[in-house]
């Protein structure tokens, strides 16, 4: 977007003292030295108050006086230093303050503080019980513990109480229900025992339980926040802006959140169309591959509807923005998406399934214990104490950590492999996948077209054509120019929108464009199209020379064959469902180990195929990028989409993978299978722990010391087992920021670890 200015006011927030604040996503920060470079470089600008780089999130926050330095200068200064930066739309940035994370951390700190203090008092009581503590001192210590524990449980327990309450109101059981019951009962029982001058109180158990569980919850939240903020950076770097035409005719780059239906938007040739709209002026050709999977360019003219995500080919267009839901195709997609997403929500997480089994069993065991001791005749109050001690010792500390601990470690590993998770339970569902359905365009293939016969580039005339292509923004011309690696454009060229470019070379007319524009022979066109069924053609013509025809098609991702072979060997059933033409899909399918493929599918067709697979009992992983894939992504058991996908598809998918390669798909599957195994091991560890601890509790031998030891011990074992995932993971370069240029770096072959 070089032709028009940004509407800066939309990106800046103004403080009371007259300075303005802007957040930018900065590309190219690789090390700590960059941080100093940027901060020092910006500090030299007049009116600069504060420039601070966040090395964790690769963001820059600047506060300055915009009367002294216009915002353009800041971007220019960053450019001179060698960094590209894009401002965040404040409407999006506001959500990044991360209130939940801070609340969890505060709750964790409070629980940690009082846990330590209560433990200090409890250890004194335990050692005193073994020696000669006086009753007064013990009561005093218990009362002090109560004084610390009660407010702590009320404050730090809030996340659990709230979640348990929501679950109960919805008539469900989740892990937080037994946690909430266990903690409240432990505190209540201890209070009663303190009042009655008893020897044992369980305050430290309740608080330590909260502390351990909060650690797990905070780590989980942090991991998710990290991948999210990385995804947000990429959204900003892709500049979700549109060139809005103001009433006075000027064009300004405006964040999408500020665009209203009815606004006029200018889309230059070669730009991606940012909004859905109706063409007001201009004609062009659109590359709709992201929307329909169709790789052929489609002509559009005044009055026709165009969709966000399509690539504008040859001419500039003025669009009138329509409301998001008015497009017929998008309507369809949205309706399908809604119904598909409802089907997905029926999935019950493994942790919640465990809770549904666990809670009734434990509560029944506790009730039976109470009845047994009552019948035995030791009186109702000691019976109640024993039955509550059963609840405390079984309180699912290990069980509560079993799944989150694995999720945290696994999502960290996935992050390193270039996979960003959208939903926490995606790991479990990925592990269950046995059938993989790929979209073709943009998923198996690269998003941009490439030359089918690169050897033609040695031809002198083709090279001239490639130089001419530098003057055009047409996607095919850009691909040709890039493939040829030419740098010197012709000085004077004229472009006929939708047809081609021409110039004079040594007194002869040189043309590049559609075969018809260059006067190519119809038979020759037919013969080359039969050789490259899915290709688009571009022609080069010079007076007196035969016309050169070049076929451009979507090339496979560099490791597509390798990865699909690997997956087929692993026993996955592979399918291709594409919206593109039959010939184009057949060409791709013939070189890949796919058991089945289908072409020219509508979004509804794709869902129908997924339903059929589901009915056969298959758990489908859908990998797709287009708008036409979005409903299928939501309908599949689990879904992945490349980072080049349209926004709607990324939102519908469970995870997004980075880079040019398909390899993260294979790694995500392998890792999630290992993670799933670790989760099951952890659940078994908790079961075994309970099998040992419950009989001791039922017999009435549990002391607070034993409860504290059992709880910490089981939590540590479960966490250590989760950390085992980090060992022997797939070897991959670890910096996620470099994921984008991975294509260039040589990588070891796919690991066989699964």
């Amino acid at each position, binding site marked *: 977007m070089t032709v028009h200015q940004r509407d800066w006011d939309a990106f800046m927030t103004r403080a009371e003292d007259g300075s303005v604040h802007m957040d930018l996503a900065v590309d190219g920060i690789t090390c*700590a030295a960059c*941080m*100093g470079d940027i901060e*020092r470089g910006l500090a030299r600008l007049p009116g600069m108050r504060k420039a601070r*780089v*966040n*090395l*964790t*999130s690769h963001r820059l926050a600047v506060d300055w006086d915009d009367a002294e330095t216009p915002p353009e200068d800041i971007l220019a200064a960053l450019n001179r230093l060698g960094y590209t930066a894009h401002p965040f739309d404040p409407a999006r940035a506001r959500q990044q303050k991360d209130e939940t994370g*801070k609340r969890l*951390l*505060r709750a964790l*700190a*409070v629980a940690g*503080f009082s846990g*330590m*203090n209560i433990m*200090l008092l409890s250890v004194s009581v335990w050692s005193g019980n073994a020696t000669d503590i*006086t009753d007064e*001192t013990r009561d005093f210590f218990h009362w*002090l513990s109560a004084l*610390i524990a009660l407010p702590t449980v009320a404050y730090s327990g809030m996340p659990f109480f709230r979640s348990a309450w929501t679950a109960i109101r919805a008539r469900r059981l989740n892990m937080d229900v037994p946690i909430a019951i266990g903690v409240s009962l432990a505190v209540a029982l201890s209070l009663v025992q303190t009042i009655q001058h008893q020897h044992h109180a369980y305050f430290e158990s309740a608080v330590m339980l909260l502390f351990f569980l909060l650690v797990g919850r905070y780590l989980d939240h942090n991991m998710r926040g990290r991948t999210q903020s990385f995804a947000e950076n990429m959204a900003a770097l892709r500049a979700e802006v549109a060139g809005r035409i103001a009433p006075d005719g000027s064009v300004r780059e405006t964040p999408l959140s500020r665009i209203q239906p009815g606004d006029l938007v200018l889309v230059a040739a070669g730009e991606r169309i940012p909004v859905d709209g109706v063409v007001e002026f201009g004609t062009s050709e659109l590359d709709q591959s992201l929307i329909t999977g169709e790789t052929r360019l489609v002509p559009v003219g005044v009055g026709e509807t165009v969709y966000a995500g399509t690539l504008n080919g040859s001419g500039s267009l003025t669009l009138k923005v329509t409301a998001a839901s008015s497009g017929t195709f998008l309507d369809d997609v949205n309706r399908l998406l809604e119904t598909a997403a409802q089907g997905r929500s029926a999935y019950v997480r493994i942790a919640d399934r465990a809770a549904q089994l666990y809670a009734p069993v434990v509560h029944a065991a506790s009730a039976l214990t109470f009845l047994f001791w009552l019948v035995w005749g030791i009186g109702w109050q000691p019976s109640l104490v024993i039955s509550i001690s059963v609840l405390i010792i079984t309180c699912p500390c290990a069980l509560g950590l079993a799944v989150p601990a694995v999720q945290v470690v696994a999502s960290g590993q996935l992050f390193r492999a270039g996979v960003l998770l959208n939903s926490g339970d995606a790991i479990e569902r990925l592990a269950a996948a046995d059938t993989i359905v790929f979209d073709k365009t943009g998923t198996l293939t690269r998003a941009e077209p490439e030359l089918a016969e690169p050897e033609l580039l040695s031809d002198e005339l083709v090279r001239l054509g490639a130089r001419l292509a530098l003057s055009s923004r047409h996607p095919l011309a850009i691909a040709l120019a890039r493939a040829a690696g030419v740098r010197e454009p012709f000085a004077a060229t004229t472009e006929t929108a939708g047809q081609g470019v021409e110039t004079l070379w040594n007194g002869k007319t040189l043309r590049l464009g559609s075969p018809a524009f260059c006067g190519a022979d119809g038979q020759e066109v037919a013969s080359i199209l039969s050789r490259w069924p899915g290709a688009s053609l571009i022609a080069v013509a010079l007076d007196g020379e035969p016309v050169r025809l070049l076929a451009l098609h979507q090339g496979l991702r560099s490791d597509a064959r390798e990865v699909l072979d690997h997956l087929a060997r692993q026993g996955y059933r592979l399918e291709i469902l594409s919206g593109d033409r039959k010939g184009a899909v057949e060409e791709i399918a013939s070189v890949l180990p796919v058991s089945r493929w289908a072409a020219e599918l509508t979004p509804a067709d794709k869902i129908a195929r997924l339903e059929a697979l589901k009915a056969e009992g298959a758990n489908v992983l859908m990998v797709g990028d287009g708008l036409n894939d979005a409903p299928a992504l939501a309908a599949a058991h689990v879904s992945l989409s490349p980072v080049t996908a349209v926004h709607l598809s990324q939102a519908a998918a469970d995870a997004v993978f980075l880079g040019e390669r398909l390899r993260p798909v294979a790694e995500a599957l392998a890792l999630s299978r290992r993670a799933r195994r670790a989760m099951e091991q952890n659940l078994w560890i908790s079961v075994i722990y309970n099998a040992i601890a419950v009989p001791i509790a039922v017999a009435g031998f549990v002391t607070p010391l034993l409860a504290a030891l059992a709880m910490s011990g089981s939590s540590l074992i479960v966490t250590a087992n989760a950390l085992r995932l980090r060992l022997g993971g797939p070897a991959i370069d670890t910096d996620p920021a470099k994921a984008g240029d991975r294509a260039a770096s040589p990588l070891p072959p796919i690991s066989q670890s699964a």
Partner: protein
Amino acid sequence: MDVLIFLIPIAIGLGLAGLVGFLWSLKTGQYEDLEGAKWRILDDDDLPAPGEPSDRLSS
């Protein structure tokens, strides 16, 4: 055991001081960039370069 009258308030008070300190550091955003902070301590940009005349050193 009279010493407890001093010891316990001191122990809890020290703990509380730690808690308050942590909450303060959280509030002032010191946990927002854990990566950057460790490098910033190595940045000696605020010192004059060697050989360069400086007001602070020459006075």
